């Protein structure tokens, strides 16, 4: 077992718990950096997708996992980000300008949606954001003079100072952006802004009593969340080469929400776990299809069915997601002979304050 003895306040503020944790992250980074050297282009492009979904997931995690506001419409922000970026590139705007402007537009839209969030929570907010996503989808489909409609919109290949990025270089670019996003979000969460998000999630009434402006905080959470989703959208546009309105359907929103729930609400590492899981899942399902008898294996609904089943199983057996399971496994090994089976057993509680969600 490892104990962390904090002898000054700086240890408490630091990003990494101790040197061990820092070393683990360094090893992980070196591993991910060296991966393209001994894997094929398929694995490389799958990993790039993991990074991109992680960025979008980080955005949604801020909203759902830390501010306690649900959104079933995050595909809309991906879509707005992707299309804005692609259209600006088409007009000859350099990516350094078009990416930030796409993010800015998304965060403005996020603030607009947050106005709905002020009076709604739970299922009502889910429906409101769903409606927003549908409006965006319809606009993208029908405004074909700008977006190309159902014919699709071709995205210019990624370029930095006239140098076109190949898939390996793009892998590194996405890794860099993901690392920066993760650092930024972790910083936010250990500073007053992030603490205000958490306060709003756990008790709106006492958040107000401690001087937190609910309107501003919710708007801020939506803005940050939408901007990150928009950023993921711009990078996805490069990855996909072609944009279609159907790439950002309701299913995409639901998959994103699944990503944060399966990863584990209220945990940034959960975002990465969730993104890996969601990217591997279609491949896994394709493999399983081959083993099954043809009558079942060829059913078209097998994939959505498996998604739904897995989500339900997670909600019943591991509501804290993969990251919660990971913590339990870690605790098991760190306390090896002494681990008690009931450590994480949920106890029945009756008082509102004793309820742990």
């Amino acid at each position, binding site marked *: 077992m490892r104990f962390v003895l904090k002898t000054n*306040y*700086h240890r*408490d*503020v630091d*990003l990494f718990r101790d040197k061990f944790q820092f070393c683990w992250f360094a090893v992980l980074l070196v591993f991910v950096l060296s991966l393209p050297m001994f894997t094929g282009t398929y694995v490389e492009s799958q990993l790039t997708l993991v990074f991109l979904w992680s960025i979008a997931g980080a955005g949604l995690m801020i909203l759902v996992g830390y501010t306690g506001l649900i959104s079933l419409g995050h595909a809309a922000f991906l879509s707005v980000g992707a299309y804005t970026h692609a259209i600006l590139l088409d007009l000859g705007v350099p990516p350094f300008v078009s990416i930030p402007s796409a993010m800015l537009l998304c965060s403005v839209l996020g603030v607009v949606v947050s106005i709905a969030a002020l009076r709604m929570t739970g299922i009502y907010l889910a429906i409101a954001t769903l409606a927003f996503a549908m409006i965006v989808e319809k606009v993208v489909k029908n405004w074909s003079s700008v977006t190309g409609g159902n014919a699709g919109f071709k995205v210019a290949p990624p370029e930095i100072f006239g140098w076109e990025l190949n898939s390996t270089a793009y892998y590194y670019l996405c890794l860099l952006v993901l690392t920066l996003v993760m650092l*930024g979000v972790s*910083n*936010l969460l*250990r*500073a*007053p*802004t*992030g*603490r*205000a998000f*958490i*306060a709003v*999630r*756990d*008790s709106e*009434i*006492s*958040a*107000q*009593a*401690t*001087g*937190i*402006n*609910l309107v501003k905080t919710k708007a*801020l959470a939506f803005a*940050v969340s939408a901007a990150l989703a928009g950023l993921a959208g711009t990078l996805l546009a490069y990855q996909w080469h072609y944009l279609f309105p159907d790439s950002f359907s309701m299913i995409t929103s639901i998959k994103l929400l699944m990503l944060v729930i399966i990863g584990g609400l*209220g945990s940034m590492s959960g975002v990465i776990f969730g993104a890996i899981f969601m990217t591997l899942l279609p491949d896994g399902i394709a493999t399983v299809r081959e083993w099954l008898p043809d009558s079942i294996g060829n059913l078209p609904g097998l994939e959505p069915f498996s998604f739904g089943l897995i989500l339900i199983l997670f909600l019943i057996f591991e509501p804290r997601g993969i990251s919660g399971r990971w913590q339990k496994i870690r605790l098991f090994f760190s306390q090896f002979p002494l681990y008690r089976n009931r450590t994480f057993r949920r106890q029945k509680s009756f*008082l*509102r*304050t*004793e*309820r*742990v*969600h």
Partner: protein
Amino acid sequence: MFEVSGLSKHFGGVAAVDDVSFSVNEGETFSIMGPNGAGKTTVLNLISRFYDVDEGTVQFGGQDITRVRPHDIARVGIARTFQNIELFERETVLQNLLIAQYIHRQTNIFFDVLFLPRVRRQEVASRKVLEDIIDLLHLQRYREQYIHALPFGVRKLVELARALCLKPKLLLLDEPSSGLNPEETEDLSFWIEDINKELGITILMVEHDMNLIGQVSDRVLVLASGRCIALGTPTEVKDHPDVIAAYLGT
């Protein structure tokens, strides 16, 4: 220093608070008591602006706070605790207390994302500020524990600590002794006295426990069905015929 005059609040046809007036002097411990449904908590909610005042005014330190927005009440210098505890459940005790430093922050979201040296200095400084209050209420051993793992009595203390971390001039306590056993209530009475005498914070509390009221409060206001029926020292109030009638029925 603190003055409520002609305060009224109606919920539909029910007058929850009806023409209540009182004033609290600086450095005083002032209690509000009364039978169930007398409107005690409503008075606190009106003062902390969770409800809009129908009629009357609330003055604090020469300032009219009747129309101040609820999240600005903490900046004015009023902190409160809740009857059923409203803590941030999935955070540690330390994080719960740090939220109380939010109103004193000098940084904005852009500084926070980059975690500039200024943010680090501010975080360290906030922790130093909390230390006195953690010491005062003996919360050291719970510092890193999650709220949902703590017993009820400790949660009440953490909530009190969070209110104190706001550095208020006036502290509103909503039934501080509810759910506590007699020993914990005894400890609480000493802490309330310490907070009042040593930190010099004026206290306005809603309470049922007559012993606790007798030990700590200077004056007591008795409410019944939303109206004031008696005001005076604890001993005066206890023997007041209207108070006896309100509690025992006529």
